[in-house]
């Protein structure tokens, strides 16, 4: 078991009830497992948000990017055990602009 910090963007705060939280989960964990855990915890609305897709530069991509300790974990690597004890996981809505 390990302790991780999860940070939620504005859009997900309304569903989870907080801006961030500490969670105790089995580590090392994969992004996929963590998301499944959160979906089970926060229900249908959370699941719908995580399933959102956006079109970016002509390609379909998940709307929420997952950052582990600042590094983005793309969908193709979401089953790798990359989340260790003490990690900070941030969910980031896709955006482009300046």
């Amino acid at each position, binding site marked *: 078991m390990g302790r991780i910090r999860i*940070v939620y*963007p*504005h*859009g997900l705060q309304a569903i989870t009830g907080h*801006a961030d939280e500490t969670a105790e989960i089995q580590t090392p964990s994969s992004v996929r497992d963590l998301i499944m855990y959160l979906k089970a915890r926060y229900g249908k609305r959370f699941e719908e948000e995580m399933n*959102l897709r*956006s*079109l*970016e*530069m*002509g*390609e379909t*991509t998940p*709307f929420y*990017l997952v*950052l582990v*300790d*600042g*590094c*983005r974990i*793309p*969908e*193709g*690597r979401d089953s790798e055990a990359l989340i260790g004890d003490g990690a*900070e996981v*941030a969910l*980031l*809505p*896709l*955006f*482009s*602009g*300046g």
Partner: protein
Amino acid sequence: MKHRILTVDLSSGKHDFQDVPLNLTKRYLGGRGLNAKLLFDGTSRKTDPLGPDNLLVIGAGLLTGTAIPSSSRFTISAKSPLTGGLGDGNSGGFFGPEMRFAGIGHIVIQGKAEKPVYLFMHDDSVEIRECDEIWGTSVREADGMIRKALGTDDVQILLIGPAGEKSSLVASVMNNLSRAAARGGMGAVMGSKNLKAVVVKGSRGTYVRDWGEILSLLKEIQAVLQADPWFHMFSNAGTTGLTENYNRLGVMPIRNFQEAFLEEVGPISSTEFLGRYARKRKSCFHCMIQCSHYYSAGEGDGEEGAEYESIVALGPRCGNFDLKAILQANAICNRLGLDTIGAGDAIGFLMECFQRGLITSRDADGLDLSWGNGETIAKLLRKIAFREGIGDLLADGSARAATQIGPEAERLAMHVKGQAIIASDPRGLKAWGLGYAVSSRGACHLRALPTAEYSATPEMAKRLWGTEEAADRFATAGKGRLVKWCEDVRVLSDALGLCRFITRTTFVFPEQLARLIPLVMPLELTPGELSEAGERINNLERLFNVREGFSRKNDSLPERFLKEPLSKGPSKGSVVDLEPMIDEYYEARSWDLQTGHPTAEKLIDLDLGEEMRSLSLYKT
């Protein structure tokens, strides 16, 4: 449909209309593209940016004012007094479309009026009107006075404020009160011509092949906007929603780029803006995204806005985390005609100089220069606009101000080619750093806007830019190809007059853009022609700068980004390894690795042979 270039000589008072030659449209489209060509042809290395020979070129995009939605944008170009190279600013609102309703695609202004004047165009009529009593007034006051003088509200007005009149190199050109073509000192160029305003009224229509096609297109876009959550975010919060996101990546500049991550971003987030200050949503001409707001943060009338760049420039960059003070500072910039990025950068720079003991409060007219002092920020903005006291130093931007303070200060000026760097720290976004270094108008994120660096999949990165690392914001490989690819795609938005927010999905690529043109113009361009036009424009802009003496050595970044890693946040521990990225970029562009000059081969390939031969550099 009338599509003309209007040339006005403020020295002689004469003007001339010319139909835009078809071959120029095919080669450069409009907006930023055709502006660059007109500027290249009409100026020379000897042209003084603040002298009468500089051209101020106002170009509506090729699709601006047509039934294509989100196409309100226009570009103002000139030789930049800030960088010494090609300069431009881009804005939305309603000015560009009105130009097209008057049958005008581009306005080329040369010379200098003897006394303060404004230009008034009404379809085919062009008047140069004296305006002594309007010179010296704020943007808002001048707007009202001009409407009164003309007896109608049904005009669109471009204005400079006191900042432009005083030739501040961070002076903007404003339209619709709060919208700004802000970068590169275009306001100073306008002011140097004694030109307070450009007013246009048009009563013609723009062409539509078949209105049923337009309605289908609008429905198609409606469906895309409804389905894509990104558009929901932008429709609701505008770019204020970016604050939280860039902070989460650890790239939001704080205290002149000393840090880039805030533990508590709430006080300056979109939630705070929407909850406390936004009163209603606002939009540019014929747009379905409608990302703007009308907000109120104090007494008196409110403003349209606010933008992420402005919030950070006047906020965290100056150590200011009080959103109310930030929004008030934004209002001051709008009313005095200042580039929020350039002005905020100059103030943040000064504050770091103070922090490090390079200047004292006494040097700054007794102002308290500690980080985050909102009152000081407001006072400094006014001083900058009127060139009073320390404002006179800051009015030319942080790079020049630094040369007056000393070599230690020069390290603290966060600029490229004199243009202030924008609100994304390149130590956490390497391709953005490359983009700033090579941009034709100095530090700019919009030339490339390489968002793919964090949004693309590794598979897409490998396929398009040769390596999965191109989608890793900390990596160096693949970024040169990525930036070149992005620049050639993005330039089409600017030449067509489309907003970047619509061209991120449905209208990204030449194939999709080519489809739009015949719907609203009696003209067809193939995707190949569009693609080539994009690359041609980027190369011509480079050639303009080469003519001015720019080379590889000018494609640089401040030392801070090359040598000092961030100590906190999700982007800590990394610096920018610029040279390999530039190598890869030049290679991708077929530009000489040593000099950064486009090769003769490339220029001839893009049908820029004539332009190339006008430079002595290529006469061997």
